């Protein structure tokens, strides 16, 4: 087993880690009680998952074919840039469309600001 093969294996393991992360966040998405908590699972851990696997792929191509893929790098940057915004927008939309919080939540500070009439 030479260096490049080891690195390839490492890349593969990176990807596997990503996929495991993804499954975890998937579980989060079904197990967590309301949309606000679920969006944590979806946006945070699955962003991590995709970053891991894209990096793995990037490393693999780099090592295996000596190919530095600008597109992959760009993709990583892009996901990194957009995922938080997307998460933000969804949860905001959820809140504004009055999706209920889970019963366990103790405090809703925003409510008074946004929907004073609902009091």
């Amino acid at each position, binding site marked *: 087993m030479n260096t490049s093969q080891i690195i390839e294996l490492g890349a593969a393991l990176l990807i596997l880690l990503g996929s495991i992360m993804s499954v975890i966040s998937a579980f989060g998405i079904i197990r967590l009680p309301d949309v606000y908590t679920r969006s944590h699972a979806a946006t945070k851990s699955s962003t991590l998952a995709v970053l891991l696997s894209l990096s793995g*792929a990037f490393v693999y191509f780099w090592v295996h074919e000596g190919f530095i893929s600008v597109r992959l790098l760009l993709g990583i940057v892009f996901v990194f840039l957009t995922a938080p915004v997307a998460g933000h927008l969804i949860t905001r939309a959820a809140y504004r469309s009055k999706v209920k919080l889970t019963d366990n939540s103790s405090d809703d500070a925003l409510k008074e600001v946004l929907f004073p009439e609902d009091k």
Partner: protein
Amino acid sequence: MVEKILLTALALFAFSIAIALYRIIKGPSMPDRTVALDMIGVNLISSIAVISIVLKTKAFLEAILILGILAFISTIAISKYVERGVIVEHKSDN
């Protein structure tokens, strides 16, 4: 070895897609579904990256970026729809 790991990873990605699908079907609220769809998109990105390795081709790297772009646009569109019903406004309020 590498290939086996990659295939396992792929299966796991597919598995999370399936779970996200459950959330889309189940709901209960629109944002739930949006979150799940976003997640499917993200998983697809990863899957494509892995498939590219498996198939030993660089042909699909464009797809990764495009999918990233589109998942973003779709999410914005849907959340705007959920929030306001209109996704393209004539004139913004501010």
